[in-house]
């Protein structure tokens, strides 16, 4: 009975998988042909540029052929706050005294043009860009999903208290318990309750953000793979660690107990080492999350780009030929990225919890 069910399920999965492969292949090649027609004007397909464009932040969202404009908010002392849609700037023309080059917005000079220095580099002042960019939008979307999901879960917990979880509640409960029992409790110890809300929030923000970046055709969000987002998360962990650090924690940094005195005097070697460790923690957290997620996006996009490159080099036949391999590899990478999405959320949360644990740990002995 159970076995028969599993067999049917596997067959269904196989059929779905094959359909997806066929669909992706035709779609990719159709796109490739489309791009070849366009590239007749542009001469060649630049994979690097396309990928970086995809991975980086953007002032509009590309949903298939649609370019959805996003609101731009600029602030400068001279001009104050300016809000308008990004469609005004997307064609490279100056608007309202601003101009956008490579997704960066500059003030135009008095002549109405962007000023360059003698080497040809842009030499213009930039307003503070508070626009709702693709990444800001993705981040807000992630947060809205979190608010909706977890507040509704809280309601269902209140409604059927002391009962087995139901629906979406039963999907998230193991994850919440995972963060509680596998990350917070063993890493922090007795005082884990205090840090639990933060740990749960970053875990689900990173995980949902990562998953959002893996959904195709909705604009290719790269929220957690953006260094600014990763940096802010790491800084929050850093600040919470430092604020909660007890006497022992700080003493370990400025006067490490249990090491020979000549490591501290006359050259404070121990302090330098501990201080580097202290500073490198948030840096490493930032870079790990940013690099892992961005690299995943780059790899998948590279596999897809191979089709376009072969299409350009050898015509449609080349595109079709390589698309089979390319799609297979990108599906493989996609599966790995699903794993990485969870893994990076886990690692970031675990390391944060370990830092909190070291900050509040009670030492009753010197070591």
């Amino acid at each position, binding site marked *: 009975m159970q076995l028969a069910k599993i067999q049917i399920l596997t067959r269904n999965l196989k059929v779905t998988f094959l359909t997806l492969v066929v669909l992706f292949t035709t779609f990719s090649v159709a796109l490739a042909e489309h791009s070849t027609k366009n590239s007749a004007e542009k001469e060649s397909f630049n994979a690097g540029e396309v990928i970086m464009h995809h991975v980086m932040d953007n002032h509009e969202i590309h949903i298939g052929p649609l370019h959805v404009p996003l609101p731009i908010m600029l602030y400068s002392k001279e001009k104050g706050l300016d809000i308008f849609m990004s469609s005004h700037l997307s064609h490279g023309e100056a608007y309202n005294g601003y101009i956008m080059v490579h997704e960066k917005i500059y003030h135009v000079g008095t002549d109405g043009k962007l000023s360059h220095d003698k080497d040809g580099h842009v030499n213009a002042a930039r307003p503070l860009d508070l626009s709702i960019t693709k990444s800001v939008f993705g981040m807000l979307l992630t947060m809205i999903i979190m*608010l909706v999901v977890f507040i509704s879960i809280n309601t269902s917990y209140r409604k059927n208290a002391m009962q087995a979880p139901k629906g979406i509640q039963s999907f998230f409960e193991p994850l919440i318990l995972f963060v509680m029992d596998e990350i917070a409790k063993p890493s922090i110890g007795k005082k884990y309750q205090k840090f639990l809300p933060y740990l749960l929030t970053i875990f689900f923000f990173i995980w949902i953000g990562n998953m959002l970046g893996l959904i195709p055709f909705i604009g290719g969000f790269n929220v957690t793979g953006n260094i600014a987002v990763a940096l802010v998360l790491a800084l929050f962990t850093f600040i919470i660690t430092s604020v909660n650090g007890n006497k022992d924690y700080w003493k370990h940094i400025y006067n490490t107990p249990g090491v020979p005195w000549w490591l501290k005097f006359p050259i404070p070697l121990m302090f330098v080492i501990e201080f580097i460790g202290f500073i490198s923690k948030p840096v490493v957290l930032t870079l790990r999350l940013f690099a892992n997620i961005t690299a995943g996006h780059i790899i998948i996009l590279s596999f897809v780009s191979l089709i376009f490159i072969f299409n350009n080099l050898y015509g449609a036949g080349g595109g079709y030929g390589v698309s089979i391999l390319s799609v297979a590899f990108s599906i493989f990478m996609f599966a790995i990225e699903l794993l990485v999405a969870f893994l990076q959320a886990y690692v970031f949360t675990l390391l944060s919890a370990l830092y909190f644990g070291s900050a509040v740990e009670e030492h009753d002995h010197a070591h």
Partner: protein
Amino acid sequence: MNPLLPELGLVLWMSVAFLVVLFLLKKFAWKGIIKALNDREEFIERSLKSAEEAKAKMSELKSDNEKLLAEARKEREQILKEAKVMKEQILSEAKITATQEGDRLISSARKEIDKEKNQALTDIKKQVSELSIAVAEKVIRKELSDNSAHEALVSSHFDQQSN
């Protein structure tokens, strides 16, 4: 385009939005969820404990019951044994009384029979003697109808007496 350089705008947005979301989730989601999970864990633990206790109590009751049952069984056996003994006793007593009664009856019957027999015998004797007297009378009367015979008899009688 340098992906390693964080954009200040995004940093500000992220910081503000994250703080707001952290606050909202902490107040309206995590607090309740964590409490519900802890409460449920406690509830389950308590339920398991009480179930364990109930189980222990039940096994205790069961052993009590078994003890009672064993006692009852023992008592029944005892009663049965006693009844058996009593039955045998009654039987044997009955047998004895029956034998005695029988003996008594037999002996009394025998006595009665003896008495009856004796009576009958005496009756018979009496009748026989009466009959014999009558016969003798008749005979004598016939004999003594002539004198010679009468004399003969008397003389014989005297002879006999003189012998």
